[in-house]
């Protein structure tokens, strides 16, 4: 109970800090961010775009991990956990893509450019969609769990290619590509102290939100299955 309220406060704090705090050339007070040349007002979206993208990747890793656990133990609880991770991962992936598009429109002029990182988030979206399509095409529960576990593991081995290697090799628009001088996409981002703190808070808040939603999600899936089984027995 207490955790829920803490989460509410944290998220609302992050939203307020992320949106309402002004960006000025020379910060005078603790609630003002400095102006980063080239980004200006757009910088604030970093508080929402990066955590959602990060969470969608984490959800994908979790789905692959629980798929692996399922294949070892054949315990349906792992399949429920993987499914909950997939559902949430899809939501966060859509959010990451949309926020990224919006940022791209304001920063570089068009909504979609096939920059390597944009392509990789698009592929992640396709992987999630494919997982759902696969699930709906198999009726036998255990076969469905096995096949989706196998597919998420196969997709998992190709993800490091997309997310970490290709954006660095190929030239692109995103910060951190081959032709960009900044060393990394986020951490060395010339962020001011209070901006960095709000960013870390935002990352923490989104992670907590995700883990809370995920634990509710997989438990509700398990309960639903139990209800179905009871109905069949009656």
């Amino acid at each position, binding site marked *: 109970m207490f955790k829920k309220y803490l989460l509410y406060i944290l998220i609302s704090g992050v939203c307020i800090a992320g949106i309402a705090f002004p960006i000025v050339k020379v910060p005078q007070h603790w609630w003002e961010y400095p102006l980063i040349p080239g980004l200006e007002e757009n910088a604030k979206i970093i508080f929402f775009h990066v955590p959602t993208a990060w969470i969608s990747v984490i959800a994908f890793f979790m789905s692959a991990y629980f798929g692996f656990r399922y294949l070892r133990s054949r315990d349906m609880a792992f399949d429920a956990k993987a499914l909950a991770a997939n559902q949430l991962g899809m939501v966060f992936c859509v959010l990451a893509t949309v926020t990224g598009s919006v940022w791209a429109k304001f920063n570089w002029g068009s909504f979609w450019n096939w920059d390597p990182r944009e392509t990789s988030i698009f592929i992640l979206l396709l992987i999630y969609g494919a997982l759902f399509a696969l699930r709906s095409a198999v009726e036998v529960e255990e076969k469905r769990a096995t096949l989706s576990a196998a*597919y998420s*593991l196969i997709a998992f*081995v190709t993800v490091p290619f997309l997310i970490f290697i290709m954006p660095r*090799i190929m030239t692109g628009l995103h910060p951190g590509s081959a032709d960009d001088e900044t060393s990394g996409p986020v951490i060395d981002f010339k962020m001011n102290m209070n901006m960095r703190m709000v960013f870390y808070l935002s990352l923490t808040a989104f992670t907590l939100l995700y883990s809370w939603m995920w634990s509710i999600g997989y438990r509700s899936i398990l309960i639903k299955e139990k209800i179905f089984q009871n109905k069949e027995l009656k």
Partner: protein
Amino acid sequence: MFALFRKDSASELRTRYALNSLIMFIVVTISVILFSSVNETLPESLTGGLLWVVVFFTAMSGLSRAFVSEEERGTTLTLQLIAKAEVVFGGKLIFNTVLIFCMNLVTLAFYALVMDSFVLRTPSVFFLAFGIGSIGISGASTVIAAIIAKANSKGTLYPVLSFPILLPLFLLLIDLTKLSIEGTTPDAAFVELAALVSYDVVIITASFLLFDFIWKD
């Protein structure tokens, strides 16, 4: 493993149904591209990419047959009984690799014939990418074919599942084709070729490890 490959290739060559339809598919697709670019010359980078588009759709049409044909003919159970999982997968993988290699060669030949702007300045880069890429395509496609063989709407599900897995491979291949058209030496393209090889190794290893779970009920 080779016995399985020989059996599959014998049954394919006996009817030649699949081979004919795949070759017709390649011809039709390239013709469509030609019709839509009748008076305009395509820029060189675009022709490189289009080659792999044709290859992708040919692979999607043809490679799922490895496992789906077993399901259709009802011989899956027999195969499960007489051979170990790795052997079955190895045989199917070899079959698919040979098939996609032949299909890609036909595509390449036809494409080079009709597309004027498809000139390779460093063929070595291209042919390396071609060979390694074909192995990678068949590796990913075979394991996905095993997955969808047990599913319901096989035909539409196959491209949906394969596309995210194959996309990094195709991006690398398109990039390498572009580099070879521009005339980059193999040394300069080394990073991409290394990434291609590592993709192949990773996908085939993962497929061998996972195939046992997919194959057995």
